[in-house]
């Protein structure tokens, strides 16, 4: 795991020769993904379609957890991993990723052109986008006295929302509302800017119900919270009275990607799986079932967006958001920020 010579990433290294006609039935696949992020029957279907000997799906709850697994040992046993863009970037810089052999993934052609111009991996050299979206304020239209339009509505909640607000604590998304409200970049590594953001976050803390990265939707539904910081897909806008707003100060563009591990012994099968997932029929499943937009033009065209869904948002709008990238050494500043904010009583 601890490779000190990581700075010259895998892209520079010569790509392994892969055989387009490899006998996939001798290969099996181990995938790690968020719970509920792929169709239940994906393993069987993929196994049948790709004629691989076995497809097993393991789960991780957060990017961090996936990172721990993937970086811990030389061979994690995982072939394909789903992680967010900046984590794919970090994995690549550690030399842990296999470059994507585009010739083995013809379905890349189905992607929006914008989807290959993402700042963490221009040209999809080592990652293939799976879903994308943004971060905003998810709220109960029946319980708010005024519709939130600014990150400040979350950071300095009015009296009626006091202690009925949640924010995310995964570090980059903890800082996001404050950074945006102050007009800074979400990728800033300037100490003064981060310090200002911290002040703002500390002011906000006493008015929070809790920090919550995963179950904020539940809290809204139950009415414990009236406004929460949320990723678009997890804002249950299909429910009555729940709405999503991107604050006027702007927000991010996040992308969840698929990557192939360099340690994989089943690289041909891994490419085949990614290609299979990019099939419009399969890929549209994600949009329809988990409410996240997919960067797949052909797939999105098939999707019938249910009422209240945010799936109608166009890629161009999304691209207005700032793409989060890995900050390398400077990312510890965000860990520290998160510690400082949560530790304060």
């Amino acid at each position: 795991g601890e490779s000190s010579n990581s700075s010259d990433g895998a892209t520079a290294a010569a790509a392994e020769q892969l055989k387009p006609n490899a006998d996939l039935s001798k290969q099996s696949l181990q995938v790690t993904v968020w719970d509920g992020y792929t169709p239940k029957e994906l393993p069987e279907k993929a196994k049948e379609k790709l004629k691989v000997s076995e497809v097993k799906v393991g789960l991780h709850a957060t990017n961090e957890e996936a990172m721990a697994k993937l970086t811990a040992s030389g061979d994690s046993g995982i072939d394909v991993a789903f992680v967010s863009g900046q984590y794919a970037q970090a994995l690549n810089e550690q030399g842990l990723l296999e470059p994507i052999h585009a010739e083995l993934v013809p379905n890349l052609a189905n992607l929006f052109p914008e989807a290959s111009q993402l700042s963490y991996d221009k040209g999809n050299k080592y990652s293939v986008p799976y879903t994308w979206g943004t971060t905003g304020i998810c709220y109960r239209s029946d319980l708010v006295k005024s519709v939130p339009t600014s990150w400040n509505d979350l950071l300095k909640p009015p009296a009626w929302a006091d202690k009925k607000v949640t924010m995310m604590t995964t570090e980059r998304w903890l800082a996001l509302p404050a950074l945006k409200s102050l007009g800074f970049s979400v990728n800033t590594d300037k100490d003064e800017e981060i310090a200002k953001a911290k002040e703002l976050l500390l002011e906000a803390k006493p008015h929070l119900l809790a920090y919550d990265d995963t179950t904020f939707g539940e809290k809204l539904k139950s009415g414990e919270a009236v406004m929460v910081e949320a990723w678009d897909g997890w804002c249950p806008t299909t429910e009555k009275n729940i709405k999503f707003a991107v604050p006027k100060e702007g927000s991010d563009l996040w992308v969840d990607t698929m990557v192939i591990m360099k340690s994989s012994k089943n690289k041909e099968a891994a490419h085949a799986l990614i290609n299979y997932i990019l099939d419009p029929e399969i890929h549209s499943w994600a949009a329809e079932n988990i409410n996240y937009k997919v960067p797949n033009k052909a797939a999105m065209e098939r999707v019938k967006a249910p009422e209240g869904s945010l799936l109608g948002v166009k890629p161009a709008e999304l691209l207005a958001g700032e793409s989060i990238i890995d900050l390398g050494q400077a990312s510890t500043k965000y860990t520290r920020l998160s510690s400082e904010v949560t530790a304060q009583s």
Partner: protein
Amino acid sequence: MKSEAKARPAPRVRGRRLGAFVFLSPGLTYLVVLLLVPLGLVLSYTVFQRGRFGGVVYEFTTENFTRLIDPLYLGVVGNSLRIAALTTLIALLIGYPTAYLIAQLPSKWKTLALVAVVLPFWTNFIIRVYAWIMLLSGPGLVNSALGKLGLGPYELLYHEGTIVTGLLYSYLPLMVLPLYSAIERLDPQLREASANLGASAFTTFRKVTLPLSVPGVMTGCLFVFVPSFGNFVIPEMLGGSKTIMVGNLIRDQFLKARDWPFGSTLALALIAVLVVLLIVQAWAARRA
């Protein structure tokens, strides 16, 4: 003559050596490989640097320790200490009488009562913690019950108190079991002798049962204190991440910041705190 005198003690020592070897070597080997070597690695990481994308760069630095004495981190350690100590104290206060009574039940009930203490463990830690959210949250059962009485709703969740409740709930059985084991083996005649000498039930407890069960008390306190001190799931789930403990810090270094050296340094600090506590405890036990 001379050789005899020399030969005498040897075989007994050999017997003891053999016994020591048979009994001790399997466990000690296990401990060395899976505990000491890993801890050695962790320890060594404290003086190295974080790689740009995680991992360890084997270049000496004392920076990790400089960061450690930051009041921010010391404050979190203090917080954790306080929460864990409070949890342990409450666990002892309700766990002891429970263990004491279980030890005196007729043997049929004894097993049942004992098993009933561990049974909740057999569901699942996360589910059990979640059950508390169901009970205590804004629209949860307690508040709706109170609501029917025209009270509340109260903010029962996401405080330090909730964290203590969750820790207590999770680790109380770890207090009861060793206490039970220690109390159960006491000769009942000692309690009788004490009563006979005029001691009330409480005095007998204080003067006879309690001192003789001190090893169990020590073990129980340790078993509750330690997992409470290093916990990070409960502060997150029941504390709404508003109060964090050392566990959260360490977990974050390993999973979020991917700063293994600093994470190792925090872990070392946590170990150091426990070692100090253990020494104090051993000292107190010797004085008692």
